[in-house]
């Protein structure tokens, strides 16, 4: 397999990003690509480990050693096929996955992991451009009809898989376009929406029905759904964002991150907006929350030509490089600097927001206090302790990017009467089936907010369970 000694002579080479001054002016994808020759050399660095930690770390169990080897040998098509065995839509993860695999790569002990994510994207783009990805509708139909609620990664995966198995699948989406958070959450500069459209077109040709602008329970009754479909797959995500109920929260200019991000993507798609557009132009922007969504807000604000962007986080700054608390091969909790951060932003840590300050009903700033995290000797848990003086961060646009808490219970879920787990997610067993017979749940709705790749893995599991369920009918 491969070239066992390549890693000794060939260095990790990332394709890198478009120059900041250029990319900051548009919403096009920021990541660049390598030449095919370089890409193959990068793949050659895979050592075909006896214990491939990459493969272990990947929730989907992608066969990294296998497809790196094929890519190294120039067998792009076979590489795509192997990749596609475990991964339905590598063009998505190839762009937005935090690449758990690379963190666990044995070469990452030296911080020189194989560029697995980029290789994945490259193989897949080549497959699209060479026309290797063609509709492959099922040869036989089983006669079973399945409803999939939600068209994010989990929903699309389950739809795709069940369709391939010959079941007739209809995907219901409350938004006007399919894709869930990938469509309206992830900024275009990370994932161009044409990438989603391209895949959706293929899925449609293969026979999946997509029904947009339809909220089940509202636009279509649950009874109809139950009557028409043999199984219901819940994949509507964890829609409830975590809010910050402190003084001044109802001031104008304070928004949930998703409001900005989704509005931005809608704008770019040329959709008319229901509300007044949120803009960061010439504003002091404060992003509360240090995660990926926060980072997306930073990037979007920058593209709006904000005067100043500040991002604050409650937790302390993670270490740079290595974190002994999360050693290899586990996912490292270390400082991540995204392209958006590079584009300009002040990042601060260990700050808790006490209140929002406003003038004339509009926000002007936020009062924050430094905190320290200390271990509680009794419970062993880390506890927050305020230290130092409070200070005020000037802000006329505040974006709350503190994650999501649980799925929306109101509406369909409550109507179905599914049980919830202690965190408010739909409770499922190993089979992804909910407490209601014939109703399955996967992705964020069942697991809580997580990564695209986990949603996909969960969707795959759901497809297997639903198929088994249908076979027994």
């Amino acid at each position: 397999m491969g070239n066992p000694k390549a890693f000794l002579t060939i260095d990790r080479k990332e394709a890198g990003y478009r120059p900041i001054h250029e990319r900051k002016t548009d919403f096009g994808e920021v990541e660049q690509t390598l030449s095919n020759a370089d890409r193959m050399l990068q793949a050659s660095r895979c050592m075909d480990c006896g214990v491939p930690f990459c493969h272990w770390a990947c929730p989907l169990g992608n066969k990294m050693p296998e497809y790196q080897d094929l890519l190294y040998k120039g067998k792009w098509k076979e590489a795509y096929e192997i990749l596609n065995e475990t991964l339905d839509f590598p063009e998505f993860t190839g762009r937005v996955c935090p690449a758990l695999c690379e963190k666990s790569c044995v070469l990452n002990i030296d911080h020189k992991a194989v560029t697995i994510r980029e290789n994945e994207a490259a193989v897949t783009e080549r497959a699209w451009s060479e026309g290797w990805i063609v509709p492959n509708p099922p040869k036989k139909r089983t006669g079973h009809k399945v409803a999939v609620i939600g068209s994010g990664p989990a929903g699309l995966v389950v739809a795709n898989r069940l369709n391939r198995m010959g079941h007739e699948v209809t995907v219901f989406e409350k938004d006007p376009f399919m894709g869930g958070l990938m469509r309206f959450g992830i900024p275009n500069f990370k994932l161009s929406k044409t990438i989603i459209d391209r895949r959706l077109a293929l899925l449609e040709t293969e026979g999946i029905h997509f029904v947009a602008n339809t909220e089940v329970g509202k636009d279509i009754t649950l009874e109809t759904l139950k009557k028409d479909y043999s199984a219901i797959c819940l994949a509507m995500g964890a829609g409830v964002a975590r809010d910050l109920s402190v003084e001044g929260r109802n001031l104008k200019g304070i928004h949930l991150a998703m409001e900005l991000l989704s509005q931005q993507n809608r704008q770019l798609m040329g959709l008319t907006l229901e509300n007044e557009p949120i803009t960061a132009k010439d504003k002091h922007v404060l992003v509360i929350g240090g995660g990926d969504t926060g980072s997306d807000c930073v990037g979007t604000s920058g593209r709006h030509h904000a005067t100043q962007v500040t991002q604050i986080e409650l937790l302390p700054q993670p270490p740079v490089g290595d974190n002994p608390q999360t050693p290899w091969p586990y996912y490292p909790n270390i400082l991540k600097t995204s392209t958006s951060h590079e584009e300009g932003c002040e990042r601060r840590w260990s700050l808790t927001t006490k209140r929002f300050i406003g003038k004339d009903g509009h926000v002007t700033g936020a009062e924050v206090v430094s905190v320290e995290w200390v271990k509680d000797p009794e419970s062993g848990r880390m506890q927050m302790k305020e230290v130092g003086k409070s200070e005020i961060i000037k802000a006329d646009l505040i974006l709350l990017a503190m994650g999501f808490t649980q799925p929306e219970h109101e509406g369909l879920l409550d109507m179905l009467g599914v049980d919830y787990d202690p965190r408010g997610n739909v409770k499922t067993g190993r089979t992804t089936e909910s407490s209601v017979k014939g109703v399955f749940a996967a992705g964020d709705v069942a697991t809580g907010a997580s990564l695209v790749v986990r949603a996909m893995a969960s969707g795959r599991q759901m497809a297997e369970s639903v198929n088994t369920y249908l076979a027994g009918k």
Partner: protein
Amino acid sequence: MVNYLSPLGLYDPEFEHDACGVGFVARITGERTHDIVESGLQVLENMVHRGAEGADQKTGDGAGILVQIPHEFILLQGIAVPERGHYGTGLVFFPRAKQEADLCMEMLSSIVKAEGLTLLHVRDVPVNSDILGEISRSNEPVIRQIVVTGPGKPEELERKLYIARKKVEKAAAQSILTEKRNFYIVSLSTQKMVYKGMLSSMQLRAYFPDLSHPNFTSAIALVHSRFSTNTFPTWDLAQPFRLLGHNGEINTIKGNRFWMQARESVLKSELLGNLEPLYPILQSGMSDSGSLDNMLEFLVMAGKPLPQALSMLVPDSWNDKNPIPDKLKAYYEYNSTMMEPWDGPATLLFSDGRYAGGMLDRNGLRPARYLITTDDVMIVASETGVQTFPAEKVREKGRLKPGKTLMVDTLEHRVYYDAELKETIASEHPYREWLEKNRIKLDDLSSGREVKNNLSNLKANMQAFGYTKEDIERLMIPMALEGKEPVSSMGNDTPIAVLSDKPQRLFAYFRQLFAQVTNPPIDPIREELVMSLTGFIGAHQANLLEPTADYCKVVKLKSPVITNREFDLLKNIRYKRFSSVELPMLFPAVGGTKALEKAVNSLCIKAEEAVENGHNYLILTDRGVNADLAAIPSLLAVSAVHHHLIECRKRMQIDIVVESAEPREIMHFALLFGYGASVINPYMAFAVLDDLVVRKEIQLDYETAEKHYVKSINKGLLKVLSKMGISTLRSYRGAQIFEAIGISSEVLHRYFEGTVSKVEGITLEDIARDAIVMHKAGFGVDSIKEIENKGVYSWRKDGELHAWNPETIARLQIATRTGSWEKFTEYVEAVDQKGHPIFLRDFLDFNHETAIDIDQVEPASAITKRFVTGAMSYGSISREAHEAMAIAMNIVGGKSNTGEGGEDPIRYKLRPDGTSTRSAIKQVASGRFGVTAEYLVNADEIQIKVAQGAKPGEGGQLPGYKVDEIIAKTRHSIPGISLISPPPHHDIYSIEDLAQLIFDLKNVNPQARISVKLVSESGVGTVAAGVAKAKADMILISGCEGGTGASPSSSIKHAGLPVEIGLAETQQTLVLNGLRGQVRLQTDGQLKTGRDIVISAMLGAEEFGFATSALIVLGCVMMRKCHLNTCPVGVATQNEELRKKFTGRYTYLVNFFNFLAEDVRRNLAAMGFTKLDDIVGRADLLQFVPKDDNPKMKKLDFSKLLYTLPSDSGKAIRNIKPQIHAINDVQDRSIIELAMPALEMQSPIQFTREIRNTDRTVGAMLSGEVAKRYGNDGLPNDTIICTFKGSAGQSFGAFLAKGITFRLEGDANDYLGKGLSGGRIVVVPPVGTTFDPHENIIAGNTLMYGATSGEVYINGQAGERFCVRNSGAIAVVEGAGDHCCEYMTGGRTVVLGKTGRNFAAGMSGGIAYVLDEDGDFDFFCNMQMVELSLVEDMADNRELRNLIAAHYRYTQSPKARQILDNWNEYVEKFIRVIPIEYKKVLHDEKIEAVKKKIAQVEYDY
């Protein structure tokens, strides 16, 4: 009383081994005197160290003597016998119980009568029972001598006696006797009789007063002393048997017995008449030697002369590399079409009362020396010096040579040498002509037909036959590309087949057996000359008793694996009315188990019909698999047919050809041959190759890929054979050198008769289910998926489970790095509660109900001292990793192991920070790299590595490019020179040899304990018992799962057994034998947690080894790339860049071992024990916890594994006393006293002493004293000069240190100068010698094995393997046997005379000069690695002359004088043998020197 002769727990008497000392004394003139008998007894008594004693220190393993019938003595007893030759007599063992004895007597007399003979007299043989040990006395028979008379000539009477005896044996076997083997006719003959018993050599004379009677006369006395691996009272197995005294072991015995059983149907003998009543020819319950004797006796009785009968059974090697006459080759080839060799190391001494002689196996793996005196007495024995004669009385001294025979005829008063004997045999018939006219070679045939290699529906077929991506990528592609066996790393951590959830090929349930200790594996590469895959198929109706040309109507095949083209030819041969029949190995998939069973039955019946219809061979084929028909596992089909035909006595008449999609890797082929196939056509493997070529996956043309593939299979087969010490595929076929693991006895008994399985397992139902699951994967309704990676070699999420997986590796590393006990418990949890069992121990649990407080348990420090790290050489792992382990073990009080490869003396000293990198255990492996006196005296334990888990029975090679300055230095070699570790230790061919090596090492360092490392396999317990008797202090049972570093893939996966079985068998056997108290037991093999440790302890281990886990702690991530030198974490590499990536610290290991000890304490507390010692050997505390994850697991049965002797047996179950080493009275003790001034003050000293063959290892203890004081630098030259007179025992001058000179006037036995460490040894014939020293053998085999420096001058010839693995010493000798300079890596060897075959095999360094007076040296030289030239270079000329001058100076050799006097004439007759690698190194050195000079030249500018 326990019956030792039937299986008990894991112990099975089937695995008994023995080895021995043998000898005979004969008066060539045939004059019968008592002094010959006396002489014979003395020979025996002088080889007492070659026999062994039982646990009671009194019982011998067996001794005996064969003499001519002492006619006068019998008359003197008042028995009115007729004249000599007209009556037969012999001893008979009767059962003690009178009733049984009477029954036996009745049987005997009635059969004698029925045969027309008269039982003239029965004499109670006087014996002296008082001297017996407890064990032998427990089963002492009543011994009577019977005298039988009858009509006819002596030859006729002899035959009648034979027939009568066979009939009595048969009647006894079928009788109601309770202890059938207690009735045993020792011998019954008109010519000779045997006295033997469960005695030690010293007891024989005292036990049988007859032997001391002055009228007890004979011209022949053949003696034997036995060293058995058990201590059980088996009087009948003492030797000599009726014709033979055998020192050695028949490795192929199982096959030989089966074939003989099958052959009985085609035998006819005019002389013996109706043979049916004599069957079985091979009496059951006998040892391998006993069976061989039965066979030999049968051939002789049927009219074959003794030497010919022997040559049929133990033929010489006759392949192209052997310099024997063509006529003889033809004879051997002819014979080989009918009879498979009885293969294994052997000194066979034989006598029928008129002739007495000896022969050696083809590889000369046992010593035998002879001497003829001026008064016509000939002595042949395992050692020289067993009888001493004044120098002037010795006419000739010599040795038996590999494959050669020597014989005395006491009637004609002459000695027959091999050439003459063989000439007679070869000339009896025109064998060459017979062959040329009848035998056809497949290679010579061709046809115009086109043969396809591809296969339609390839993927479906591949799925149906379970091909995986790994099969193709890791095995088949490397084979096709390189023509070599593929290599993997880091052992095996997947479940055994029966525990796996994945469907398995039937092949996966079998394990290869291998030789350890009791006989040596062979090096199939360097000793290719004894190996052969040649086979014949066709007419087998041969009655081997009456040779005719017809029997060679056969097809000869060079390779047993044939291509499609060859198969097509074979199928269509119509030559000489050849015909074959095809039988499909298929069954209807829907029919399940029933259908499979029916199909196999019908195959057997059809095979039987094929025989009746006169077909020459049947072709079992699985072509034709389709949606309805699934394939019968080929192994099941082959073995079922093979055994069925044996059973119905039709196996000899037909051959089995297999055309199957199933076999793809070496193990598969080995299994099919091992269970009876003659030829295999793996058509699917070829189709896969064809597909790979077409898809350009391999960039070779198909023919080349095919050739490489077949070549690698063949090479692999040779290796599999050789690891059992078997040289020819013909004797391997049907020998079933396998054991099963996880197969029910029901299946084994029915289809694989004779195969052992220890834990029960699958039934036919499971076999059928797996076959059908795989069949469905290919031909089921679901569409065919891609060929998958099933994670058998590398870990995969949905693949086979691996004990070392991301979770366990990560948790262990994090826990030990952070020193967090909490994290460690997470690791323990991941290992102990793995959900699905991987190892046998996962089925074991113990009682947690009697928990005690953990504070009551002994401290961790008491436990860590039982820990050792595995033997990993510096070379296989980096210096950083090696030293980290040593430091950690020294801190926690455990022991680290040098591994094979020496140790830098700098590590013997403490480091400035107080830590020590000294490895407490110094390993002594077959390569003997860096094994010097200094190395040995710096050990707390010296470990003899007999086998290693990942590749038991195999050698290894460190390629030259990996040998850098430092590795070369610690290994006492030269950078850039390949270092080969031979498969066997060349000084351990048998258990008594091991005893000798242990004795050697104990002498050098009396303080160190000596341990022996064995690998788990069936029979390892028996081997261990032998090792305990050989005085090892500790025995390590290694599991087959272990093994770091590179090994052939097939060995990692398919050789050896899980450690639990080997450990339990060892414990049980040692306890049963009463030997457990005197040895400690250690174990290793995937031990990971405290639970693993306590379970191992309960199964019998006192100490525990860790290798892989220790490496993981140091950063290993199980890349399994050790063989590529690309270890990305700097553990298993010498690459500077990669070593920088090493992040391990010894503190991590200290954490690890302390945590482990804590975990052990935790478990002990849970069980309610305070000390680990309290649970050692307490298998009764273990419970079998059944699991039913899959239907196969349900069928496991651990009752044998958990067997314990009743607690009141009074036998020790753990080590309670030290071994008694007999080193208190060795010569060295007094020499050391004499030499004290030299040792203490370096003042020179000289003295002279007498020496005998019983003085063994002289010089080693003295050298140890030198090394202790002065290290490897030793003393100034000639500080101690000692002259010895007489015959030196084995290992004379072993490890002799610098500054000591030993001069021996007399002769020497084997292993002289072993491990020579700078000393000088001179051997000259005694003063007064009349023969020409140049022509005579003066020293034994395997001289200077592993010598690192020093000088040896021998005025005479030496035996086989002179200078084997010499890495720096200088030697001059006047002639040498086979394999001279084998594996030599340095030093100089000068041979002033003839050499044997295979000179310089595997020689990678040093230079040899050979005087080639006959001009035929190149024929005797193995040219694989060396180059020959004349001595042209002046420097060489000078060097050679100086060496010969030194030889003359020390020995006054007339030959040396002659050469020096005529230097210019002689120098032209010398051949210089130089390894190609060494030449390059020398060349590079020269260039380097020139460059330096150039650089130093000053220039004007």
